[in-house]
């Protein structure tokens, strides 16, 4: 939903860092994006391409790592991926925030990230 504004944050941070490093070119950028955010990866890629045009990051490779939703259970100690409701009526996977082992609510430990991990630059 906020791909353009999030991606402009990404591009801005990348260009700032590249300038600090006196880089002549940004070759690649790696970001982690959680499954529980509302960022559509196709739109992020498209926005990235548009926003880096006419910058030193033009044609750089954007690598997106999808981070799956995970949770931990205060009741039974489960720590692991979220499970999904499987109702064939819906052609979508609906996640549940309940523990797959005991059914109690989980606290979410991963899947909400939007983080720039590293950038690769050329001097």
């Amino acid at each position, binding site marked *: *939903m906020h791909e353009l504004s*999030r991606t402009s944050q990404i591009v801005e941070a990348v260009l700032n860092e590249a300038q600090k490093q006196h880089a002549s070119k940004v070759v690649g950028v790696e970001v982690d994006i959680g499954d529980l955010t509302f960022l559509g990866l196709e739109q992020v890629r498209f926005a990235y391409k548009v926003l880096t045009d006419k910058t030193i990051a033009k044609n750089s490779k954007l690598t997106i790592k999808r981070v799956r939703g995970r949770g931990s259970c205060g009741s039974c100690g489960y720590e692991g991926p979220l499970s999904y409701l499987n109702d064939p009526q819906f052609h979508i996977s*609906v996640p*549940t925030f309940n523990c797959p082992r005991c059914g109690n609510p989980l606290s979410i430990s991963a899947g909400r990230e939007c*983080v720039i991990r590293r*950038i690769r630059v*050329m*001097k």
Partner: protein
Amino acid sequence: MPHTVQSEPGEIFDIELDENLKKANDLIAEENRIQLKKHGVQAIDVMGAVGSGKTSLIEHLVLLLRSRYRIVAFKGDLTSKIDSERISNLGIQTVQINTGRECHLDANLVRKALGKIDLSVIDLIFIENVGNLICPADFPLGSDKRAVVVSVTEGPYMVVKHPFIFADADVAVINKIDLAGPMNVDANKLGSDVQAINAKTSVVFTNCRTGQGVSEVASALDIHPTL
């Protein structure tokens, strides 16, 4: 002259950044939370689709609770003061937050609104988010509790189509239950869908035209008309 080894033009190297792009909002949300706590103010974020009944719910909660609590309502909308006028007609202070184009409130807008009121004479704040079931989920505001209003007129699949909004929802309000029959929507199914997604979310059924169920919403939010 000592030799120093430096990267030369054309060399490629990696820089670890670990820059969290959600940090800016989350930090301000935490500041809001601390500020509210310091003044002993409870804040409730009310989310839901356009026309689901958020303002009507807040109107009834104000009527129920205004003798015990000193209440302020923040109203997020793209434009207009229509809703905040509805609520200020009940004799409580409102702060209109017009987002202009943004589809959700963020922690910074709420911080600005907090700056417009005297927290030392306030007990309870209702923060009505912009009508939207998607974006507000990504932007914590620093409230104590989050409520989501879903009405039966939005159809039978509203909950499963918007699972993420329930990840942090303390209460789900299934509204307009008087229209469930004509709409041919099973309100109980909407409630069980919420529970399947998040067992922590309490489900309350309301008709915010008449006020039916509103006192149960207040109890579920841990705000009570009497001590």
